[in-house]
């Protein structure tokens, strides 16, 4: 707008002139300066200024020169404004940023550099080995994939475990990959701080100190759990040669000491026989949890269920007399609830009825024995303790009828006097016929008796012990607290612990040396006289660890440089060359024989010359009846509480406390997770005013303990039972401070037995510690819930005699509810996957749950989430009580996704994430699931599990996200994240594997080739999976058998899982509990 411009300037000029007129007037200035007598000279910069040129004066007043303030010529300017420039800059930056990522990059494919011959990518390789979980050394098959062990199952060649393994064995994979395993040797000079050292340095220091101790006559004590490895024993013998003051001590938390000492008194030796329970028609279990916790429970369970098949053979009958509530008792046909300290009197009363009143053929006891028995009488006993006369009468008559085909098992916790009495009873009944004649136990190194321990402790205190070596053992936690072991250890200058994880013993050691897990170790084991079991490493040690035998060998040689990574393998082979394989008397090359042994995992031997002690075979046991007479003590029932300390099936003696799967496995009866508790009876709880989770103080002659109670139906009044192995104080993050350490209640000088104490007081403290159970702990007498399992036909039971009389009784009782189904029925031709679970064989042990966890990458969720019913186990064992709370009957039922043909969950998924396949499987597509949870809402069996959190991230500072944990995952099963629903898939990955084999061999899929994880692990073979359309298969026969039923069958969802009704072998032909 030019016109404005000139007028503006004019206005400006005018104003300038005005200003200039005022200010720059040289004459005025001169005048003023003369007037003021100012002597400042007149400054001028140019002639124009000097002469006060009027034009110049105008210019001077203006700040900007001509044209400087002209509006810019738009034609001169660039088309590219600042704004445009900035916009383009940011746009190009954005484009560059998005274009930066190579969205087509599919990652890397990295093959082996030199592929080992055994490995096929994606195919598993199996190795036979031996388990180290407990002293029974069962054989295992380890499944590895690309070099990583991911699953452990039983070795079918092992004569004792016969292809099965317990929960501890199944979960042992997690022990290998535990991120909190010890990884480097550490030295702890003041037993407080640790610094890492090299193996060579540690060896050198230790060898010099050991040599010094030996030469100065100080004892070197090696403390271990049961030593059942012949080669380890040899290495220890060599150690004792090099260090002459060395002594080996061994211990177990539950060592059957009373049973063995009783056997010694009765038979003159400590070689307990192997009882062939599968030949027994009647079994009496006196406080004996032989199916759950005592002895080799795998062997026991397999022998027991041989005679519990409804369609084959005759049922045996199990009687149980116990004060604690155990799964053996709950599986019994007749269970007599009796406080533990009354059991010995019961045995006496039984003996008087059986031996006293009627002379048993061929057996005579002398009058002294008889006179001892005469004081007891069964009728009085029944009246005094209020037990069922019917049950006792049946027991007596059964025992008398089945002499030589029955057995009385006394529990390990019972005192020596009871065991002696039971030995007499078994002999009288001729039950020694059940003792195995061709198999006997081998104990290479007997466990150290109390006298040896006390001598050791006093030597330690007196400074006569120069070194203590904990050989993969934890005496600071396990030994009875009144040995005061940890305090005595302070007097020992050198304490070395060889361990896989931190524990209470490593916390008080000078050297903590990490050892290999069972997957990384060589070994050989002998528990029976007929075979040896080999152990081979399937993976090189993950960390800087050594095998405990290797460490011993390095110390034996006296020089740290003798170690190389094959040292124990060579030693083992050398030992075998001279002992085992030499005795085989074959002309097979050693290497062939060795490899054959490793392939099978088990080598049969005919002589025990390679082993330790020459045992007395079963046939040569001579009974000494005078032992009974010589017994001076008799356990009698008191009026105070009696305390029973029991084994827990999951954590061993506490060494597996850091294994989250085992902690989260519910205990069979109480279904409690993550804690131990004091099991107390309903009556005692009422008397003391206790509710579950209330804290009590238990005081015995050994010590005191504060622990929460749990009201357990079926516990006898006056009995309080606590599980040992909990309350680890020095442990990884998972197991630390979980549960309560009942070790303070174990005494070395117990009157009855180390696990049974009378005169115990229980007092209620205030406060509580929440005990979390996976089953709602409801009052079983509440009207709405009482016998719900029978009213809804979830549990259908009968008696064996009833079944014999009328095989069709179950169908007649429940009928076939012929309601109309709203679904269109259709025929499934071709393969149809189904499962049958035999409730006669299911003892409720929970192995199937752990196997499913390992196979399907189930996360651990922690106690707080289990409380909200958010445990992620796909399979659960439902446990129902019926009858009275004081003396209930228990029914177990494994519950998993029923794969219903008309699944209510499939209809309601808004995104069709769960669909039914033509072969009967209800599948789950995790990638489609949006987490509506409508399917779980609709499931009548409530078997769907939802990932409310990414539990791997959430539990215990994301320990499950550690690198080593991810190595444990089964690569064939998706690892689920937050927001996704999951459930049992019938091991679809195994079905697809079978399908791939079938296509490779150009044949049809054979249903019985597929073994689901739960089926494979079930010790009693209660679970059968397969093709229900295959007419000759076992599954088909089971589904169409007389006792089969489906759960909640009136809602017509057609589940693919069939249950076989439990038959209790009682004399009554009507199952009086299940009246509905």
């Amino acid at each position, binding site marked *: 707008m030019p016109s404005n411009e000139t007028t503006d300037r004019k206005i400006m000029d005018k104003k300038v002139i005005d200003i200039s007129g005022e200010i720059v007037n040289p004459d005025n200035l001169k005048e003023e300066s003369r007037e003021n007598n100012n002597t400042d000279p007149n400054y001028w910069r140019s002639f124009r200024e000097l002469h006060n040129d009027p034009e110049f004066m105008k210019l001077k007043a203006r700040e900007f020169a001509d044209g400087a303030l002209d509006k810019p010529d738009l034609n001169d300017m660039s088309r590219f404004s600042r704004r445009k420039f900035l916009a383009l800059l940011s746009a190009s930056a954005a484009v560059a940023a998005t274009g930066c990522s190579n969205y087509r990059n599919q990652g890397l494919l990295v093959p082996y550099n030199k592929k*080992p011959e055994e490995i096929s990518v994606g195919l598993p*390789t199996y190795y036979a080995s031996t388990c180290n979980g407990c002293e029974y050394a069962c054989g295992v098959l380890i499944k590895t994939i690309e070099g990583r062990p991911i699953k452990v199952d039983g070795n079918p060649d092992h004569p004792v475990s016969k292809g099965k393994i317990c929960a501890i064995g199944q979960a042992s994979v997690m022990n290998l990959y535990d991120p909190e395993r010890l990884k480097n040797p550490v030295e702890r000079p003041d037993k407080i701080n640790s610094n890492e050292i090299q193996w060579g340095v540690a060896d050198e220091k230790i060898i010099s100190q050991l040599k010094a101790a030996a030469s100065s006559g100080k004892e070197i004590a090696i403390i271990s759990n049961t030593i059942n490895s012949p080669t380890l024993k040899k290495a220890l013998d060599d150690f004792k040669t090099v260090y002459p003051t060395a002594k080996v001590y061994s211990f177990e938390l539950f060592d059957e000491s009373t049973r063995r000492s009783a056997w010694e008194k009765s038979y003159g030796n400590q070689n307990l026989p192997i009882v062939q329970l599968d030949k027994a028609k009647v079994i009496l279990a006196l406080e004996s949890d032989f199916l759950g916790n005592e002895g080799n429970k795998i062997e026991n369970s397999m022998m027991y269920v041989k005679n519990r098949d409804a369609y084959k053979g005759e049922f045996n009958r199990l009687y149980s007399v116990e004060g604690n509530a155990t799964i053996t008792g709950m599986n019994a046909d007749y269970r007599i609830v009796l406080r533990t300290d009354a059991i010995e009197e019961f045995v006496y009363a039984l003996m008087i009825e059986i031996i006293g009143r009627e002379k048993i053929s061929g057996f005579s006891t002398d009058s002294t024995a008889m006179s001892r028995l005469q004081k007891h009488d069964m009728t009085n006993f029944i009246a005094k303790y209020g037990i069922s006369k019917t049950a006792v009468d049946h027991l007596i008559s059964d025992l008398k009828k089945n002499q030589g085909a029955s057995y009385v098992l006394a529990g390990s916790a019972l005192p020596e006097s009871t065991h002696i009495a039971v030995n007499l009873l078994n002999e009288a009944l001729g039950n020694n016929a059940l003792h195995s004649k061709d198999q006997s136990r081998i104990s290479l190194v007997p466990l150290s008796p109390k006298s040896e321990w006390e001598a050791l402790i006093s030597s330690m205190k007196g400074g006569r012990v120069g070194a203590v070596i904990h050989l993969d053992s934890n005496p600071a936690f396990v030994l009875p607290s009144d040995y005061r072991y940890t305090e005595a250890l302070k007097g020992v200058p050198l304490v070395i612990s060889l361990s896989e994880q931190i524990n209470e013993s490593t916390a008080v050691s000078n050297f903590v040396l990490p050892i290999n897990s069972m997957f990384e170790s060589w070994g050989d084991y002998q528990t029976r006289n007929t075979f040896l079991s080999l152990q081979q490493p399937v993976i090189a040690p993950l960390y800087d660890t050594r095998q405990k035998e290797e460490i011993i060998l390095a110390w034996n040689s006296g020089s740290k440089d003798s170690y190389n990574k094959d040292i124990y393998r060579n030693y083992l082979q050398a030992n075998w060359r001279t002992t085992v394989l030499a005795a085989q008397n074959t002309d097979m090359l050693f290497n062939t024989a060795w*490899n054959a042994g490793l392939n099978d995992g088990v080598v049969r031997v005919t002589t025990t010359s390679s082993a330790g002690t020459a045992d007395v075979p079963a046939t040569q046991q001579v009974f000494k009846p005078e032992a009974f007479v010589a017994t001076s003590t008799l356990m009698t029932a008191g009026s105070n509480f009696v305390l029973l300390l029991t084994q827990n099936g999951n954590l061993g003696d506490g060494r597996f406390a850091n294994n989250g799967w085992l902690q989260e496995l519910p205990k069979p009866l109480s279904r409690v997770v993550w804690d131990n508790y004091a099991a107390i009876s309903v009556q005692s709880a009422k008397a003391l005013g206790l509710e579950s989770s209330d804290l009590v103080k238990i005081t015995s002659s050994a010590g005191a303990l504060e622990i929460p109670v749990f009201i357990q139906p079926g516990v006898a009044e006056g009995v309080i039972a606590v599980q040992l192995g909990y309350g680890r104080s020095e442990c990884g993050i998972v197991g630390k401070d979980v549960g309560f350490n009942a070790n303070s209640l174990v005494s070395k000088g117990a009157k009855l037995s180390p696990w049974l104490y009378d005169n115990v007081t229980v007092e209620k403290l205030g406060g509580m510690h929440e005990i979390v159970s996976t089953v709602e702990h409801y009052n079983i007498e509440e009207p709405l819930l009482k016998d719900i399992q029978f009213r809804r036909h979830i549990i259908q039971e009968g008696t064996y005699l009833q079944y014999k009389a009328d095989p069709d009784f179950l169908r007649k009782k429940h009928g076939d509810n012929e309601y109309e189904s709203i679904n269109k029925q259709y025929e499934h031709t071709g393969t149809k996957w189904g499962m049958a679970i035999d409730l006669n064989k299911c003892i409720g042990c929970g192995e199937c749950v752990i196997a499913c966890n390992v196979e399907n990458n189930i996360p651990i969720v922690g106690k707080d989430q289990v409380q909200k019913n958010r445990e992620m186990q796909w399979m659960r064992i439902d446990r129902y009580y019926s009858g009275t709370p004081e003396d209930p009957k228990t029914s177990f039922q494994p519950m998993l996704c029923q794969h219903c043909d008309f699944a209510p969950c499939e209809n309601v998924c808004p995104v069709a994430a769960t669909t039914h396949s033509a072969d009967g499987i209800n599948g789950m597509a995790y990638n489609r699931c949006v987490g509506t949870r409508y399917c779980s809402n609709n499931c009548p069996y409530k078997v769907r599990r939802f990932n409310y959190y990414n539990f791997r*991230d959430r539990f215990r500072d994301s320990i499950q*996200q550690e690198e080593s944990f991810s190595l444990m995952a089964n690569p064939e099963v998706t690892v689920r994240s937050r927001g996704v629903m999951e459930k049992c898939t019938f091991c679809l990955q195994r079905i697809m594997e079978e399908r791939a084999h079938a296509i490779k061999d150009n044949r049809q899929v054979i249903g019985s080739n597929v073994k689901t994880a739960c089926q494979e692990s079930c010790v009693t073979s209660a679970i059968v999976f397969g093709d229900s359309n295959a007419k000759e298969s076992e599954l088909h026969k089971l589904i169409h058998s007389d006792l089969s039923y489906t759960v909640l069958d009136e809602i017509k969802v057609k589940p693919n899982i069939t249950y076989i009704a439990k038959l209790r072998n009682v004399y009554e032909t009507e199952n009086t509990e299940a009246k509905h």
Partner: protein
Amino acid sequence: MIMKNGLSSTNYNKDILSSEKIGRKKFFLLTGIAALGTAVLSAIPFGRKVVAGSTKQESIKISPNPHAVKRNNRQENNG
């Protein structure tokens, strides 16, 4: 006397925008939304978190033991 500064030349901004300066309301609205967006994005990790361990270098070396003997079948070996 009004001293008008030489720079009262803002009048030709009008040529460019043909409107007044961006309204104060609009300005605050836009900056408010920007601030809110930044706050939301920084508080809620919309898929930004990478699962721990997925990008880490494998420090555990897995190697099978060369002396181990594999088993060919899972069935009983007639042993």
